[in-house]
């Protein structure tokens, strides 16, 4: 498995990247009116006076023993910061990718079947809009329509855990945007699949049109769609920072971005490691799906 070296390499890159950023967490934490001594005290308190390799090994030790320690900035245990944020992100990503797949695949099939008709063009215009529309614009549009004008859905989460109601608008935002490439991909690979000879053969055998489309054609058309959806899902897990910001949604992306600005080294490092690990897992799952969809793909 390539998983271990990938993670190891990622850990080194992540560690170095954040340490090479200009700026000093001790300085930020010490505040604007700190004296030089205040800053030095803070540096010692944070363990940033140690040499980099030592800090790296401490980081790896804490990662491997899952004893992540505390945030430099807030002093909260890092697990208590990352885990709930990650679960929130997972909910959002799952809902969003479901919406993307449902809408994208259905529209893609319809467009492929009605190729070069008005229906096809409308679907493709929708897809083009989805691909080119910035996510924050759609987010704000949805807020204006559903929260400000109609007052039927909340624009943010107030309180502890997001419920389904809170998830509707952010997941719809991400889901609609994500549906567009899936629709385009489904359409083109469906068109290709439908032109294959085995489809004609199936027709000659007298299978029902529905079975031909949904079973024989779609199955072959799905491989590239799964690839796109898998990548998209990975990005969603990494945190849809812009969407999270517009909806003030307590997800992982916002936590990591806030932590980068505050130079909260350990939160950034462990947060990113978590994302890298998940990305690797999602890729593995996608490989498994390939094999399920198309038995000719064999897992090594």
């Amino acid at each position, binding site marked *: 498995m390539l998983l271990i070296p990938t993670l190891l390499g990622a850990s080194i890159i992540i560690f170095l990247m954040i340490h090479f950023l200009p700026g000093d967490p001790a300085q930020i934490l010490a505040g604007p009116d700190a*004296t030089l001594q205040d800053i030095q005290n803070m540096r010692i308190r944070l363990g940033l006076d140690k040499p980099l390799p030592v800090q790296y090994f401490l980081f790896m030790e804490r990662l491997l023993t899952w004893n992540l320690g505390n945030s430099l900035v807030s002093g909260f245990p890092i697990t*208590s910061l990352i885990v709930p944020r990650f679960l929130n992100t997972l909910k959002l990503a799952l809902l969003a990718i479901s919406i993307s797949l449902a809408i994208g695949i259905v529209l893609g099939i319809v467009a492929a079947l009605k190729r070069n008709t008005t229906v096809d063009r409308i679907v493709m215009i929708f897809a083009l809009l989805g691909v080119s529309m910035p996510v924050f614009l759609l987010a704000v549009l949805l807020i204006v329509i559903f929260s400000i004008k109609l007052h039927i859905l909340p624009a943010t989460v*107030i*309180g502890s855990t997001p419920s389904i109601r809170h998830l509707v608008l952010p997941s719809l935002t991400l889901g609609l945007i994500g549906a567009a490439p899936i629709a385009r991909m489904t359409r083109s690979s469906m068109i290709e699949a439908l032109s294959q000879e085995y489809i004609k053969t199936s027709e000659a055998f007298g299978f029902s049109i529905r079975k031909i489309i949904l079973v024989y054609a779609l199955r072959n058309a799905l491989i590239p769609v799964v690839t796109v959806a898998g990548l998209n899902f990975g990005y969603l897990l990494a945190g849809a920072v812009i969407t999270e910001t517009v909806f*003030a949604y307590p997800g992982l992306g916002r936590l990591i971005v806030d932590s980068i600005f505050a130079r909260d080294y350990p939160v950034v490092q462990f947060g990113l490691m978590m994302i890298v690990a998940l990305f690797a897992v999602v890729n593995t799952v996608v490989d498994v799906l390939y094999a399920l*969809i198309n038995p000719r793909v064999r897992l090594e």
Partner: protein
Amino acid sequence: MVRERGISTSAIIGIVVVILVIAIAGAYLATRGGGAPATTTASPSTTTTAPATTTTTTTTVAPPKGTLIVAMGTDASTLDPQDATDNPSEMVNRIIYEGLVEFDQNLNIKPMLAESWDIKDNGTTYVFHLRKGVFFQDGTPFDAYAVKTNFDRVLNSTLKLQRYSLYAPIISSVEVIDNYTVAFHLKMPFGAFLNDLAHGAGLIISPTLINSGKDVKTNPVGTGPYMLQEWVKGDHITLVANPNYWNKTAAPKFEKIIIKVVADDKARENLLKTGDVDLVLRIPPVDVASLNGTGNIITRAYPTSRVIYIAMNLMNQKFQDVRVRQAFNYAVDKEAIINSILNGLGKPATSPLASSTYGYCYAGYYKYNVTLAKELLKEAGWWDRDGDGYVENANGQKLEVNLWTPQGRYVGDYQMAQAVQSYLNAIGVKVNLQVWEWTSYLNEVRKPYNQSQNKELFLMGWAPSTGEGDWVLRPLLASWMWAPAGSNYGYYNNTQVDELIQKQMVTLGQDRLNAMCQAQKIVYNDAPWIFMVEMYDTLGMKSNVKGVVYLPIEIVMLKYAYSG
């Protein structure tokens, strides 16, 4: 594509359906079940769901009801007042804790946990007479020992608390005279002492908490009207009414206050429009007027003690001549900047201090005057000798300067720097504008002078957290506060100003005001900065939110809020 053999019976649509079902079920379960957020529960005895009304129904006090939801841009970083250096933390701390004295909305000092005080020994001893019948939220009585425990803590250098450096140079010891009388012995007379106590670092923590060794920053216990129920870091802080609050006339009006972190300005504004929140901090100036009166929303703008300035690196040859520095000041149209960039929410700076800061006096105003600016440059030897539109000196060198600015740290910071770039261009100075991310910026401007060759002009803002002039003049302009030791980032050095700063520290009353005023005038004429603007801050709220007090030190006092 290659032809497919062996058609299996498992329908592809089945896979799609399975994905959907798993995903939706997963999301649903995750929503219902797992994912209990990281919280800090303040006192285990607080019940979360039962209405807090039952315990407070004393004679005439109306029971607290409803929830006040507030959106602010940044989360608090610590609820330990003696370790906090940021405004969001101070804002929350001022709800949970109270100090011996408190600022009113004009930054005058008013009694809080101390009912009165005497100043003795030429201003080196302050004796406070404490209020009786006050209890901390954990039941500990408030008395002189509590005060001493607090100040002994912040003055303990081994704890390395951030506010050690605020008190350590001033306080020599704290003495308990009797249960309700406490004396502060100072190392020298210090004019700003009461302001230092009204400062966010002077809020009094429960001595039981301090002695317990528990982490104060996440387990705050004060004497204030609301106490911490839950803190989901980076998302929200929930405070609940303190049923045993000592001051029945200022008893908490809400059952809960939820402070939600919403980083994006537009998102905060939207939440006010949707009605999700009741009060929003910092509405962008451009929207203040249009939002006011939309539905039930009102907006307010408040003058603050923050002055935005563009400092010059005085160790750089280009800024040696005071005429050049003054020319730069005359070249910038402050009023136009305020009107076009800040939508009128600000006023030109007429001193290093803002006019709401204690000790301010009018020091002068470099009113926009291009002709005068060009004349001053010419007197200093800079004029357009070769007709290319830029000024040169006798050696044919052009006057070219770097201008650095953060973006998004202060309202309109980058836009102001852009405006200054074009104003300086208009008098023949070539300006290279560079935008910095805040953390890197702070790191760069704080460097000592021998590592700061490229630092020439740089935009900064300062608001004294004590609300008075010492905390502007001393850290920003005293020669012993040159970066990196202090915040004198432009290396300003004037012996006369140094002496006046020392004098205002150890004098009281009118003598102190005179010294501060003189210092302001000298600095103004020396023009070590381009004096820009006094900033205003903005709030947006539902029209039924009343009692919100705004302190010019950029602190919103939420504890007096009520719904009316």
